[in-house]
């Protein structure tokens, strides 16, 4: 990638020169970098003074870094327009074709545009924050800790690159500047939620959590850049001629990959599902390792956190088990359907989370569930119940089917995210999304849904009775 940089920078230099000559870009960035921070200083001064007068100094201290983050965020959101129109704007103005005819590689063209679009928000954001901090010193407003300042600077830079990367992906896929601007909400809304979350962390004063947030945002940024580079093809820029979702075409691609070469349902099950399963080796291994790690984290959490109330609850579990066995009579399908739907829903939520994070957040449901399972298991063991009895009584009867099913579904989500990020096979973004979805649907319909149904039946009809037998109810 480094040897591609000199040619990419030719594009960057031209774009920057163009930006510097456009007052519509320069004026807002300068305003947000040099005027807005002073207004924010005034705001900070007033709020800090007021909060201190009410004796809530701890909140006043958090206000200064919070406003620092806001000062850094505004130039990024304003500069987003530059990234959004980077490709589609040139296409609309008819200047893209001479660039496409040049001997630059696709990656160089993309990288040059990306760096150029990231410069204004990064420089604007950092300048704004520096002016704000200097203003704080001038006005005698106490500065936040050095670690937090560094975290907010880093977060601002990474968020700027992330938003720009997402906007460039939008710009390569959009058919007009108007459609790119309309799609901007898909970047701004998640970012607003992210900034809201980070604000909460700043007010809590949890610097470790902020480092984790930084790590998460950085990972997503790297993946977004990767996706952009992997899926950018100059031909696509000239080909794309659709301003609306072609549902029929999307369905065609989905169905084609979902069905594969199968001639019957049995053939599909025997060959296509098996083929998909064979392709899930590495992601399944990864998710299994994550699952084991989640259980260990749950156990560790129990060891470091005291939960006496929870342990007392467990002591009265026997009577509840008896109730459960009475409420869930054998072969009553209602609890089975409830449990099954609960688990399927969890997998669909995992898919939704994975869809916005290249599969990464898709692992959250299984991780959180197993952290909880590890925590509960350790709590039970802490009450003196043997671990083996607890596992046999509560977990294993249905877990032996349910956990592998969840691992498979999560592995399919992870694989889909990785395929999207790597751009394997030179497919378009939309096509790759449909293929990943078809892979997930194969695994879900062919394996996970039936397995979860079996697990739900065992959980409703067998597990409570086994638990009663083990615990002598």
């Amino acid at each position: 990638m480094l040897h591609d940089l000199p040619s990419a920078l030719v594009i960057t230099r031209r774009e920057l020169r163009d930006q510097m000559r456009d007052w519509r870009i320069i004026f807002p960035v300068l305003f947000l970098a040099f005027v807005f921070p002073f207004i924010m200083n005034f705001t900070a001064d007033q709020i800090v003074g007021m909060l201190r007068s009410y004796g809530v100094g701890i909140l006043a201290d958090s206000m200064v870094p919070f406003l620092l983050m806001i000062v850094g965020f505004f130039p990024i959101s304003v500069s987003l327009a530059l990234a959004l129109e980077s490709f589609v704007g040139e296409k609309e103005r008819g200047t893209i074709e001479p660039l496409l005819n040049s001997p630059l590689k696709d990656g160089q063209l993309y990288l040059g545009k990306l760096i150029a679009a990231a410069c204004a928000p990064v420089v604007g954001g950092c300048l704004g924050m520096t002016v704000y901090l200097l203003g704080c010193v001038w006005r005698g407003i106490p500065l936040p800790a050095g670690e937090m300042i560094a975290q907010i600077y880093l977060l601002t830079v990474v968020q700027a690159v992330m938003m720009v990367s997402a906007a460039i992906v939008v710009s390569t896929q959009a058919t007009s500047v108007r459609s790119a601007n309309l799609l901007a909400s898909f970047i701004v809304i998640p970012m607003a939620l992210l900034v809201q979350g980070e604000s909460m962390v700043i007010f809590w004063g949890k610097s470790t959590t902020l480092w984790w947030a930084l790590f998460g945002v950085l990972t997503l940024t790297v993946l977004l850049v990767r996706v952009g580079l992997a899926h950018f093809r100059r031909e696509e820029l000239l080909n794309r001629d659709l301003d609306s979702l072609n549902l029929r075409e999307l369905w065609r691609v989905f169905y084609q990959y979902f069905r594969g070469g199968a001639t019957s349902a049995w053939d599909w099950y025997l060959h296509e599902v098996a083929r998909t399963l064979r392709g899930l080796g590495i992601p399944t291994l990864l998710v299994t390792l994550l699952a084991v790690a989640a259980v260990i984290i749950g156990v560790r959490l129990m060891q470091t956190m005291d939960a006496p109330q929870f342990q007392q609850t467990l002591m009265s579990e026997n009577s509840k088990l008896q109730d459960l066995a009475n409420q869930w009579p054998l072969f009553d399908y209602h609890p089975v359907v409830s449990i099954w739907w609960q688990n399927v829903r969890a997998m669909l939520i995992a898919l939704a989370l994975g869809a916005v994070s290249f599969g990464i957040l898709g692992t959250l449901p299984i991780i959180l569930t197993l952290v909880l399972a590890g925590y509960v298991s350790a709590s039970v063991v802490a009450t003196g119940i043997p671990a083996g009895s607890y596992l046999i009584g509560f977990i294993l009867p249905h877990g032996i089917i349910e956990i592998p099913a969840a691992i498979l579904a999560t592995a399919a989500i992870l694989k889909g995210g990785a395929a999207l990020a790597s751009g394997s096979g030179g497919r378009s973004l939309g096509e790759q999304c449909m293929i990943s979805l078809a892979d997930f649907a194969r695994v879900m319909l062919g394996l996970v849904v039936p397995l979860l149904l079996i697990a739900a039946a065992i959980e409703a009809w067998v597990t409570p009775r086994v638990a009663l037998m083990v615990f002598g109810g």
Partner: protein
Amino acid sequence: MIVAEQLTKRFENFLAVADMSFSVQPGQVLVFLGPNGAGKTTTVRMLSSVLRPTSGSAWVAGYDVVTHPREVRARVGVLTEQHGLYARMTAKEYLNFFGELYGLTPAEICARSAALLEQFGLAGARGRRLGTYSRGMRQKLALIRALVHDPPVLLLDEPTTAMDPESALVVRDAIRKQAGEGRTIILCTHNLYEAELLAHHIAVIRQGRILYQSDKAEFLHDLLGPSQFQARFAHPVGDWTPTLPPGVRLVERGAEWMRFTVDDPVLSNPLLLRQMLSGPLEMVAFEEVTQNLESAYIEAVNRFTRPEAPHAA
């Protein structure tokens, strides 16, 4: 040199270019004649490795357009339908930018730019922002951009669109000069006058297919028949007819003129002239009737788009 074999491009359900085969030698100009939407631009984009052919193959300057796209693009100068200039740049900056993209040294860029700006009459405007250029000036600069890296192959899509006659003349002269210097040129146009002026070979394209292609002389001969000559006399010709040599036919006559088709003018015209000069009438003129490319083009379209007509290419 450009060679294309059964070049085809399909966009989902739309067949933009179908089975195009042609070749152009260095120093030759192949003109693609056809209406808007005929597939000319798609063909140019495939030849410049911007679009990937759905099937078929093409080689430009010795490189396969699919397997060696960068090598192809480095050796092709493309003038697109839209001039594609950046309004806030000056001509000097614009040419520097493209020179850098094509890997030229600053000295090479400087020398090439200066010579080309001079040749196209834009030297005085090199420091002006391109947003202030007239349409003709923009088109000229776009052509200079296509030439700045001294490519052996030129793909020109409507190069004189929107130009005033004087500017169009400069550009046509430049294209002729480029061909004279040994460059391989494909020129897309629906301007028949331009085609007649510049073409060595002509391909008529319609609905993504080459309806007909040949060299220019053959094109006219094939579509409009043999050359025609007209003799004009001092007095009414009445029903007098000279003895016609083999390969000469009288096709039309007026009060004081006659028109002949001649299969081989070099062989037959001296004999025909001798016959007429020895006749009873005084001949005042004998000249070739100009065969119009427009008529030939319309004939080609009519002949090859009839439902039963086979595709000549």
